[in-house]
């Protein structure tokens, strides 16, 4: 059942089973509304969840929790829980959610922060610059296209897992696969009513996240089980649970409209989105904000409007997924612009070039549209988009391949591209802190709250500190993500770790450097200005030097003893966008609809890459997930809302033999706000594969793919039903969704 009220639930037989330590139902836990979204306080997502409810809102929702000695006993106990449901109508199509008379998914009185629970609207966003209606009237030509993006899952190879236990000081320890240890502590505290001071969250090495672990997903229930049993509890998702009951990417319908002059100049752009957040509104507002703010500002345009209506349905819950709304918006935008270019008879790259944002620009929409609230003025200080395009065209041999005659036989080739922007952290929101201290041998302990989920963040911090202190990276002993022993950090999301916490690290290292020079100055009895730090030594002139070990020993044991240490925080009102151009070459089998990506080129301006191997690794991995989004990945449901493809047998991600030839080029710029000139790189590479592949398919076979994913059957069907669709509008269309 996708939607039902729990009329009666009786766990007495389950509790009586030997080996069962606890069974929790909604009768056993106080109702404390919260959001599972792992965001800063106060979270911009609606408080529409409770740990256990008297209602199920999608197939895969929580009903009860069992703690037992073994998994087998726990499974047996689950079978013994008697539940009587009153089935409610289920909404499986987001268009139905806002129809009058639709069943209400969140009519409980204690939820808060929902935009309009009486119409199943979790969040509503509207931002406007200039006068788009006037712009459409003035423009030589007006175009409108509708695009659809599907449900996909982050699918880290490690499913969610958590261990909770009380330590010898009676403090609740949570050892957890998470991207947000500090948010996890705060939110678990809230729902378990165990004070923050009594909770320690530890994130060990974990097996990927991609956004799905920016969620308080299972740690709350595990903590409750430990609280009532006083015993260690381990909770781990199966792959089926991970696919069905964790989080997904928001599916959307996007209506993109442009007013364009005959020379290709954009006069007005509007993007209207109907998004599906599933049964709960986790990240509903903020993801959809990014759909607009990470796409539209890429082009100069005086009249811009963005509107998103985010609705509840009785389907799995959407949440944070690498890209965070941008892949959806950029898919629509970059396919739409390809269509416009085609209609105008222009090269799609030239159309973009005519309109791209430039250094010195301050896109007004970024000021209007922040994350869940108004944004901050952003001035573009670094942008190498032109160079990204130039090098990408060259790498994929664009001009040659765009003009070649069509191949004989059933396999047709084509090339397509997309331009992209993203952000570096959430301006005015994200904060990270770092701590550093010297040891006797000249090594340093680095402590950061930042969360390395396989992204290489710990290495980046070691590099930054080592660079400032002129020592080898292996002198840095990095310890991260432990709420007792590391300073605060918002966690691994929003492409913020290097850009935000990296600066904190740099500041802390600089404090250490200054103290080292002070100690050395005392030891040398020379003014600091005469000293330099170089190759891990402090030099006076070119012949006298002290090692960091000698300085550390002196400061710790000899005179005026103190600990050489640095501690700093950083946050920023600037979120400099990384920019990118991505290019795909595809081969389409027109008899089967099978699309093979032959080559994929990414040219990314991420500022100065602090760790080029790590940065290209991010690009390669992001592209691969993006290709899955484009071609193979889609969660499927039956007519009752039950997920059909709950294993990797049928949720198809790219394997090593599916990969195209991949070229990833870092096009360097210097971003003055970032550490050593760095901007973000983690998310932008996932944004472009879907539009670039769609545009390449069009180039190959002349069929426009406006809905993801491009599976063989979808492409085959599109070819069969294809008629060149006239996207040109003579009259401006009404807004898609009523306010």
């Amino acid at each position: 059942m996708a939607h039902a009220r729990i009329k009666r639930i009786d766990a007495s037989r389950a509790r009586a089973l030997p080996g069962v330590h606890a069974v929790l139902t909604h009768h056993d836990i106080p109702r404390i509304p919260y959001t599972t979204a792992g965001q800063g306080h106060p979270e911009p997502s609606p408080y529409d969840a409770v740990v256990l409810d008297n209602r199920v809102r999608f197939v895969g929702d929580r009903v009860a929790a069992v703690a037992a000695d073994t998994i087998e006993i726990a499974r047996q106990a689950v079978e013994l829980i008697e539940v009587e449901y009153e089935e409610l109508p289920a909404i499986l199509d987001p268009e139905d959610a806002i129809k009058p008379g639709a069943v209400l998914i969140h009519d409980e009185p204690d939820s808060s922060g929902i935009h309009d629970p009486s119409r199943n609207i979790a969040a509503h966003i509207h931002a406007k610059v200039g006068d788009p209606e006037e712009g459409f009237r003035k423009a030589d030509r007006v175009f409108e296209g509708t695009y659809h993006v599907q449900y996909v899952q982050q699918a880290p190879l490690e499913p969610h897992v958590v261990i909770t236990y009380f330590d010898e000081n009676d403090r609740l320890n949570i050892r957890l696969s998470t991207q947000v240890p500090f948010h996890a502590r705060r939110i678990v505290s809230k729902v378990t009513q165990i004070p923050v001071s009594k909770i320690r969250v530890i994130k060990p090495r974990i097996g990927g996240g991609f956004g799905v672990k920016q969620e308080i997903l299972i740690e709350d229930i595990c903590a409750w089980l430990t609280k009532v049993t006083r015993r260690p509890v381990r909770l781990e998702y199966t792959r089926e649970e991970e696919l069905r009951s964790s989080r997904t990417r928001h599916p959307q319908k996007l209506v993109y409209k442009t007013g364009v002059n005959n020379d290709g100049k954009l006069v007005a752009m509007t993007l209207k989105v109907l998004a599906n957040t599933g049964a709960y509104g986790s990240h509903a507002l903020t993801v959809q904000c990014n759909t607009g703010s990470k796409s539209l500002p890429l082009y100069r345009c005086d009249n811009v409007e963005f509107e998103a209506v985010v609705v509840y349905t009785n389907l799995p819950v959407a949440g944070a997924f690498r890209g965070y709304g941008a892949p959806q918006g950029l898919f629509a935008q970059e396919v739409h612009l390809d269509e416009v270019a085609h209609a105008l008879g222009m090269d799609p790259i030239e159309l973009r070039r005519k309109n791209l944002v430039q250094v010195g620009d301050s896109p007004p929409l970024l000021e209007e549209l922040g994350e869940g609230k108004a944004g901050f003025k952003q001035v573009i200080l670094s942008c190498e988009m032109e160079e990204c395009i130039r090098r990408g065209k060259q790498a994929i041999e664009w001009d040659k391949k765009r003009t070649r005659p069509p191949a004989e036989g059933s396999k047709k080739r084509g090339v397509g591209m997309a331009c992209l922007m993203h952000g570096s952290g959430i301006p005015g929101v994200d904060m990270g802190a770092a701590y550093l201290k010297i040891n006797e041998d000249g090594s340093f302990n680095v402590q950061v709250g930042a969360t390395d989920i396989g992204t290489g963040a710990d290495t980046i911090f070691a590099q930054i500190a080592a660079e400032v202190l002129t020592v080898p990276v292996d002198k840095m002993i990095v310890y991260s993500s432990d709420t007792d022993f590391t300073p605060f950090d918002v966690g691994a999301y929003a492409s913020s770790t290097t850009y935000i916490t990296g600066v904190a690290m740099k500041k802390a290292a600089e404090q250490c450097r200054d103290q080292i020079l002070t100690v050395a100055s005392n030891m040398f009895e020379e003014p600091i200005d005469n000293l330099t730090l170089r190759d891990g030594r402090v030099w006076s002139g070119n012949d006298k030097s002290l090692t960091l070990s000698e300085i550390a020993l002196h400061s710790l044991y000899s005179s005026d003893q103190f600990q050489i240490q640095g501690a700093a925080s950083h946050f920023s009102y600037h979120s400099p966008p990384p920019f990118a151009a991505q290019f795909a070459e595809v081969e389409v089998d027109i008899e089967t609809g099978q699309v093979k990506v032959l080559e994929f080129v990414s040219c990314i301006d991420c500022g100065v890459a602090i760790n080029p191997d790590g940065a290209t690794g991010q690009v390669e991995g992001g592209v691969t997930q993006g290709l899955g989004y484009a071609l193979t990945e889609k969660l499927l449901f039956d007519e009752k809302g039950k997920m059909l493809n709950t294993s990797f047998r049928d949720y198809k991600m790219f394997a090593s033999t599916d990969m195209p030839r991949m070229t990833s080029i870092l096009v360097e710029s210097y971003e003055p706000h970032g550490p050593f000139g760095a901007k973000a790189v983690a998310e932008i590479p996932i944004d472009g594969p879907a539009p670039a592949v769609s545009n390449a398919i069009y180039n190959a076979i002349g069929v426009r793919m406006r809905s993801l994913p491009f599976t063989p059957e979808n492409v085959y069907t599109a070819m069969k039903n294809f008629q060149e669709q006239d996207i040109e509008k003579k009259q401006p269309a009404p807004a898609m969704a009523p306010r």
Partner: protein
Amino acid sequence: MKIDLTINGSRGTYETHPGTLLMELLRKEGWFSVKHGCETGECGTCTVLIDGMTINSCIYLAAQAHGKSITTVEALGTPENMHPIQQAFVETGAVQCGYCTPAMVLAAQELLSQNREPTEADVRDALTGQLCRCTGYVKPVEAVMLAARRMKEGGQGEEGLSGNREADDSSGRREAGVR
């Protein structure tokens, strides 16, 4: 039931439920490089070598391995003395979250013990059993190619390491962690 296994060179008899998966037994015995990822033999994070061949230990009963020799990545090398494949993974930046890495290293080991001069296509084929959500396979493929070159030059690989090497009993046993 009782089963006899040689795990990373150590022979032992294990008392286990007949339905116990090999993955479960190995993790219980402290071989944490063997990961749980999907329960259906699709993701490959549970890969181990049985008599030198990769097997998905999540769809393989411990009892099926009775009398056989099992190798996990703990037997291939140590942080101080890495196997050439491990060294190549480190040098090429082929590891991100690392969850699939032990499996990939074992798959590479199987390949290189049978084929000293693999093409890139051979390497890609050998890694089809190990999904990776982080790297896009670019650097792992590079790593295996690099290891192949070095092992050929160094005369290593042909005889393989199918559980014959005496495992340092302490090398693979880490503090009990989340997984």
